[in-house]
């Protein structure tokens, strides 16, 4: 049917391509926005966590400072120290070990007392001297660094006292053996993977603790001052900080967009094919209409010959004008039968309705009239006989028929009329309708009607115009107006039959507003 049977229309492909491009752009945008959002949220989260950590550091410092001051202020420094710091030392407490050292200018640092585990520092007098000496000279907490034997610990020192005799508090926090701490819910760390390093360089050897062994793709870090050192917090999100929707939105956009793109392409293709089909059909319909019209016209011509038989002494012209559509058979006919001896039988009729059935009724009526005429019946007699052949109730059609015999010998017209419009008689400069008695149309009544036969004497030379209602019937006026228009046209028209018919037929086509067919029979005698 279509010229492009299986081929996809270019427009549909363009629709799909454009939709996919838009989808890709939207998807990328959604991804980038989410990515930036996650970055931003992670930075905020890490900064927040860093702040929490930072707030916790003074607690260590305060505890150690207070313990040192207690030692200094007490008569028995060891007792004062132990009394104060005892609460903070032990398993699962802040410090795994706490010790008090006395530094005098003269001697090496002397271990005064120890709570918890014996500090490693105690077995290394050289290191103790160096580190505690540094601590004594500095203010605030001094971080000794990561200790790995026998377990992982973080050591700090804090000094108090006068220049000559200082007490240094040394404490160690026990770190998880492998550096891993459990993830506890509800803390600032709960939705973060984090690693806390001592010093500014995050390396495995400097790891204080972490809650995972590896970071995610996206990390952020913050540095927290811690005594003389610093802590480096590196973290990545364990989940999606911006929520799941933000993270999967670009997938949703991509999948939905791809589906919609192909759906749009399919719809476009379907519409294009339908249009193609409709256009093809329109062409087919047009050609079928033309074909039907030509068939109708040929049938009509076969049923109503365009050329009347030549009759001696008469000029006869005929016209058959199809209605506006011209697609269907009409029910109009004319007929001329030469009876011999100067007598001519004229027949004109109009079957109501259109189409094949009207055409068939017309054809059979016309033939029936011919048959009865050939048997020698006169106009009224023929009408009576054909009237029994048609019934409006059973056939759906009725017919107006006018039958006449014109005798050239005395210009007399013997005529009978079944509901048909009166013929127009045209003489020099004048035109008038005959005033015949009109019976009901053929097939219009329950019982076949009786028809009267009238004989009318006509002048010579003259022209008699027999026609069907299509010639005078117009919307918006009554038949009298149309009849009067035809009468005036006939007066103005040329007298010769053919030009006369051309004139009234042309006049008809200008004013036509109905779809009715029209048959015209013009008979002229001298």
């Amino acid at each position: 049917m279509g010229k492009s049977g299986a081929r996809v229309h270019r427009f549909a492909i363009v629709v799909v391509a454009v939709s996919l491009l838009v989808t890709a752009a939207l998807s990328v945008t959604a991804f980038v926005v989410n990515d930036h959002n996650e970055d931003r949220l992670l930075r905020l989260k890490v900064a927040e966590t860093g702040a929490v950590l930072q707030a916790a550091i003074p607690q260590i410092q305060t505890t150690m400072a207070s313990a040192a001051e207690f030692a200094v202020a007490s008569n028995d420094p060891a007792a004062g120290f132990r009394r104060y710091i005892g609460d903070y030392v032990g398993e699962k407490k802040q410090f795994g070990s706490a010790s008090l050292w006395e530094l005098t200018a003269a001697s090496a640092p002397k271990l005064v007392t120890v709570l918890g585990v014996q500090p490693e520092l105690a077995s290394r007098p050289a290191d103790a001297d160096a580190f505690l000496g540094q601590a004594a000279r500095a203010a605030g907490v001094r971080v000794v660094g990561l200790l790995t034997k026998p377990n992982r610990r973080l050591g700090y020192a804090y000094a108090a006292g006068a220049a000559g005799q200082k007490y240094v508090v040394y404490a160690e926090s026990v770190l998880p053996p492998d550096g891993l701490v459990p993830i506890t819910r509800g803390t600032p760390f709960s939705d973060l993977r984090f690693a806390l390093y001592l010093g500014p360089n995050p390396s495995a050897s400097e790891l204080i603790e972490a809650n995972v062994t590896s970071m995610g793709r996206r990390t952020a870090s913050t540095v927290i001052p811690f005594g003389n050192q610093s802590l480096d917090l590196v973290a990545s999100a364990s989940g999606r900080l911006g929520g799941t929707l933000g993270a999967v939105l670009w997938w949703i956009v991509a999948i939905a967009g791809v589906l919609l793109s192909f759906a749009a392409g399919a719809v476009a293709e379907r519409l294009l094919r339908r249009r193609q089909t409709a256009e093809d059909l329109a062409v087919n319909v047009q050609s079928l209409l033309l074909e039907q019209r030509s068939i109708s016209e040929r049938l009509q011509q076969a049923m109503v010959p365009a050329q009347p038989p030549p009759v001696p002494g008469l000029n006869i012209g005929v016209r058959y004008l199809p209605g506006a559509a011209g697609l269907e058979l009409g029910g109009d006919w004319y007929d001329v039968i030469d009876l011999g001896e100067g007598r001519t039988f004229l027949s004109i009729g109009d079957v109501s309705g259109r189409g094949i059935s009207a055409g068939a009724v017309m054809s059979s009526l016309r033939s029936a009239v011919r048959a009865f005429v050939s048997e020698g019946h006169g106009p009224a007699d023929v009408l009576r006989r054909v009237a029994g052949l048609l019934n409006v109730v059973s056939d759906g059609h009725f017919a107006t028929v006018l039958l006449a015999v014109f005798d050239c010998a005395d210009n007399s017209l013997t005529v009978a009329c079944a509901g048909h419009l009166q013929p127009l008689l045209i003489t020099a400069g004048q035109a008038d309708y005959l005033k015949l008695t009109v019976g009901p149309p053929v097939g219009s009544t329950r019982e076949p009607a009786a028809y009267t036969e009238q004989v009318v004497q006509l002048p010579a030379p003259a022209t008699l115009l027999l026609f069907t209602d299509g010639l005078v019937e117009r919307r918006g006026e009554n038949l009298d107006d149309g009849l009067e228009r035809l009468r005036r046209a006939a007066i103005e028209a040329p007298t010769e039959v053919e030009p006369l018919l051309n004139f009234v037929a042309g006049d008809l086509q200008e004013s036509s507003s109905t779809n009715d067919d029209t048959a015209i029979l013009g008979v002229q005698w001298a």
Partner: protein
Amino acid sequence: MTTSEPEFGDAQFYADHARSDTWVITVIGEVDLGNRERFHAVVERALFAAPAKLIFDLAGVRFMDSSGLGVLLSAASKASSVEVRTPSLAVRRLIELSGLTNVLRIAE
């Protein structure tokens, strides 16, 4: 050669029965081949009630061709009594010129 759409008129058809034995069919507009089937259907429905009298009110008919006339004639053949009430001039002249004054009785 061109083909043009046929022009058809527009009309409204109403069927009423004030009394069960009298139906009145009112037609307003133009009756032609385009709406004869509708007209016919309305008339058939009225005839189905087998009214003693069928009245056509055709005062509002501006145009009627032989298709419309056929519906009137068909009704006149089937119904026991048909009357055309106050027809417009177009309808009156159609009835008169078609020699149907005895078939379609005109009531003023």
